């Protein structure tokens, strides 16, 4: 084999060939491609312009409001990262909202229980706050990962559709969370130092949770595009049987991906406790919608094999910007769910049109 001989011509070959390919597309296809690639930006921009024009001056389009939007998006980003990996395997995880809730409920309870006696905590004293916070965080993350693992094992060992398994664990986790919490808020907020340092803490002008989300985004991007984990995830979603025949441990990969989604839901629960000091079912009923919305709006295909982390991160801003803008407009924020729902359907339709085009 002529090894090393063609080193310098590699890049050139590739670029030249790509030129050929793009020039072969018809004008219509190229326009469609452009729309598909950039509609998310156009849509996001449109949303921002709309709210800017519909709200009083200096209310929506301000630095502090965007800091707030970023803060509220941090949890959605974590959930959307996990959901991206899952959807790239051609699966779906409908349980991440429930996993977040049960992880947060257990983590919060443990945090309060370890902070001091019931009476101390009720009076706002948290003598053992630091230990309590650390153990509470660990509980959230272990709990989330464990539920993700359960999802993955049920899907692969019992060969059940992900849709059904995760719908089941959604019900289980929501129900168990209410049983654990008695359906009410905690008797006291989580230790204030936790909220001060993480939930309300800022670093370089942004809240800590969004920095945490950015950190996870960078790691996820590298894992997805530059490590075998991401490659195998895409291979499984693209052609499960083919991947298996190539020698990839397909089932193990699927279990890992659902465990990852659970881990990220547990991490989101940590942020949730830090930001809101409490956790309740009502505020997590649309987590799944928001996360799945972010992922499919961001360009990840429900058919598996194709996705981007960055797209999901951008998509994650749509529900939170909508929520924020509608509240400032004094419109019932329930419209947010309607808007996200409509956008999801549109995004999936667009994906389907594109697939039909490219495989004809």
């Amino acid at each position, binding site marked *: *084999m*002529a*090894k*090393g001989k*063609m*080193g310098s011509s*590699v890049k050139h*070959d*590739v670029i030249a*060939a*790509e030129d*050929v*390919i793009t020039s072969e597309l018809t004008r219509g296809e190229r326009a469609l491609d452009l729309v598909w690639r950039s509609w998310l930006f156009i849509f996001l921009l449109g949303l921002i312009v709309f709210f800017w024009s519909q709200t009083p001056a200096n209310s929506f389009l301000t630095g502090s409001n965007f800091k707030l939007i970023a803060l509220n998006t941090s949890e959605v980003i974590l959930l959307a990262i996990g959901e991206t990996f899952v959807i790239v395997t051609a699966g779906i995880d409908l349980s991440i909202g429930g996993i977040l809730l049960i992880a947060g409920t257990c983590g919060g309870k443990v945090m309060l229980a370890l902070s001091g006696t019931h009476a101390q905590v009720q009076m706002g004293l948290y003598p053992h706050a630091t230990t309590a916070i650390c153990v509470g965080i660990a509980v959230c993350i272990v709990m989330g990962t464990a539920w993700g693992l359960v999802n993955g094992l049920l899907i692969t060992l019992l060969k059940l559709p992900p849709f059904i398994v995760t719908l089941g664990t959604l019900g289980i986790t929501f129900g168990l969370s209410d049983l654990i919490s008695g359906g009410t808020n905690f008797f006291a907020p989580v230790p204030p130092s936790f909220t001060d340092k993480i939930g309300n803490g800022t670093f370089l002008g942004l809240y800590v949770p969004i920095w945490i989300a950015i950190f996870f985004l960078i790691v996820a991007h*590298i894992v997805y595009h*530059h*490590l*075998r984990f991401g*490659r*195998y995830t*895409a*291979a499984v*979603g*693209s*052609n499960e*049987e*083919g*991947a*298996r*025949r*190539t*020698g*990839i441990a397909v089932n193990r990969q699927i279990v890992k991906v659902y465990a990852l989604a659970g881990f990220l839901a547990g991490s989101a629960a940590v942020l949730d406790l830090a930001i809101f000091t409490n956790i309740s079912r009502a505020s997590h009923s649309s987590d799944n919608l928001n996360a799945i919305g972010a992922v499919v709006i961001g360009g990840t295909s429900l058919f*598996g*094999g*194709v996705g981007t982390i960055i797209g999901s991160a951008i998509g994650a801003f749509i529900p939170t910007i909508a929520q924020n803008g509608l509240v400032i407009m004094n419109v019932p924020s329930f419209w947010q769910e309607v808007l996200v729902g409509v956008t999801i359907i549109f995004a999936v339709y667009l994906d389907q049109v594109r697939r039909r085009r*490219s*495989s004809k």
Partner: protein
Amino acid sequence: MLELRGISKHFGAVQALTEVDFEVYPGEVVALVGDNGAGKSTLVKCVAGTHAPDDGKIVFEGREVKIASPSDATHLGIETVYQDLALCDNLDVVQNMFLGRERVQRLIPLAVEPLSEIEMEKQALDVLKSLRVTTIDSVRTKVVSLSGGQRQSVAISKAVMWNSKVVLLDEPTAALGVAQTEQVLALIAQLREQGLGVVVISHNLAEVLDVADRIVVLRLGRRAATFERGEATPDDVVAAITGARMLKIGGNR
């Protein structure tokens, strides 16, 4: 080099293979022929580790081996190009060729090992070039947008780039045009030159008679006949495939 003894396999009530013996030697091209549903693909999958045979032995290089998974087969040096589902549509040519055997940099061994994309791309180009696969414009094209012939070229290149000893090709030319078929046949001859054992499944008798050193006929899951090179006429082979004149050929195993 590779020897199967008494392989049986059933799917529910369907007896796909009944006590099939089969062998391939280094530097030999064996054609496996038979009607649709004769069990050819099933036999190949038993060797490739996708199906577990119900019964029988696999002997490789003089030792009895267990092939329980595709990676067992590849570790032994047995590579398979499947009739269907060979490649991942949404991955590009390089990603497919290295799938499951990616080149990585050991940044933090076992934890962070980034893929060496450039190295893989170079090597993929080298392999395609050495096999004279010239129809693929860019190795970064996703497989979904390749033609059937281009896909088959990629799938075969993928199988032979790992110092494999035995290559199993399930209908490698089924979807190809004339020129591409010629290329694949030339490629098969080249693999034989390199001392590999090659098993080719094909429905095209002219092609089989042209390239094969030996022809093994499967019929209804049993080995029905064997022909050495030059020994068979197309009529004989057809007769063995369809079961006409079974008696005469039956003793020819």
